[in-house]
């Protein structure tokens, strides 16, 4: 029988799932899912990209991440447990990516390459933060660099 999940709340898709079962949810590598309930090796939930579509997918196709749950139940909110700066960098990069592609289509060459450069630097800095190999001082340094670049981009 289906039971609500306690600790299994957020997952990242590690293998694309074609959804080839009844009520299956199609999932792409790298997508984030919110998990509501589970049963016999399956999860039921939705992709953060399309929250209104609920479906089932194999538990083995997602990697679980720590989360903070509020208002448990049908209308719960789930937030990944991570340094807020990581969350900010990730969402900023996704926003800028839309802009970046527009710059390409409109042939704004200079800005296109500049933005690409900054985006790559941010991806790298974020990776350094997530590596868990930095000392406190290094973490502060990296965060400072990140802020500088986020400010640049927002201008």
């Amino acid at each position, binding site marked *: 029988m289906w039971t609500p999940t306690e600790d299994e709340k957020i997952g*990242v898709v590690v293998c694309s799932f074609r959804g080839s079962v009844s009520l299956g949810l199609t999932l792409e590598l*790298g997508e984030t899912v919110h998990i509501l*309930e589970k049963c*016999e*090796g*399956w999860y*039921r939930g939705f992709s953060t990209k399309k929250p209104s579509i609920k479906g089932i997918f194999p538990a083995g196709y997602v990697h679980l991440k720590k989360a903070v749950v509020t208002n448990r139940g049908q209308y719960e909110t789930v937030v990944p447990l991570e340094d807020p700066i990581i969350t900010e960098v990730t969402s900023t990069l996704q926003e800028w990516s839309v802009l970046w592609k527009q710059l390409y289509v409109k*042939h704004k060459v200079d800005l296109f390459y500049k933005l690409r450069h900054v985006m790559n630097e941010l991806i790298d800095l974020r990776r350094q933060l997530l590596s868990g190999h930095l000392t406190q001082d*290094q973490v502060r340094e990296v965060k400072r660099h990140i802020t500088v670049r986020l400010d640049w981009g927002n201008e």
Partner: protein
Amino acid sequence: YLAFSGQKLILQLNKNPSRLKKQAEKKQKRYTTQSVTLQCNTVDSARPHRPSPKSEMLSQDDPKSRPMLELREKLQPEVIELIKQQRLNRMYEGTCFRKISARRRQDKFWYCRLSPNHKVLHYGDIEEFSQGQISPESLQEKVTVADIKAVVTGKDCPHMKEKGALKNKELLELAFSIHHNSDEYLNFIAPDKHEFCIWTDGLNAVLGKEMTSELTKSDMDTLVNMELKLRLLDLENIQIPDVPPPVPKEPSTYDFVYDFSQQHI
């Protein structure tokens, strides 16, 4: 005048220090980023050395792994669409071309641009080289896209084949022609390789054909690589299986805990 130039000197002296300071800060920033990376490596080597056999390598670090190749393939069609849009936009802005002839002393110029609905190519002679756009009204001639039979390049072009035509390796690489109606040709010499790629790609695109230039390949790499990195952001440090994990038997029940059927989102 002396007084004025004296003031100017002072102003410049005041400017420079801050600019130098900014440049120094910039340099420092770059070095700091590098030194953070270096320090990371040092910290790493301070840990007990762990060899990383191929089996421990993360799939996302290996561009040839199956999931990576699959994702790349998945991303390509959208990227091709972007490239196509860009090429068409460029053709809509238009380009100034040169009519090169051994017989003439001075080169003549002409302008060609695609109509907004992508159905007509407007072109015409212009007095002098123009960087900016020329409006279609001032371009006298046109070719209807539907009448285009083929696009040829290099030595297959009539203006490269005719006797006495200026031919050198450079020109051959920039030459392309539009074969339209049954027997007419519109001959082009692109100002540079970049424009050559833009126009041959763009023309192939309006004709529903594949864009095959080096520029398309390079743009494709640039765009797909970034998209790939963004897709994999949340998979940092996470192992991606090389082959799909087994799919369990379908659940014995679909009697879910939560019912969302009342939602209107």
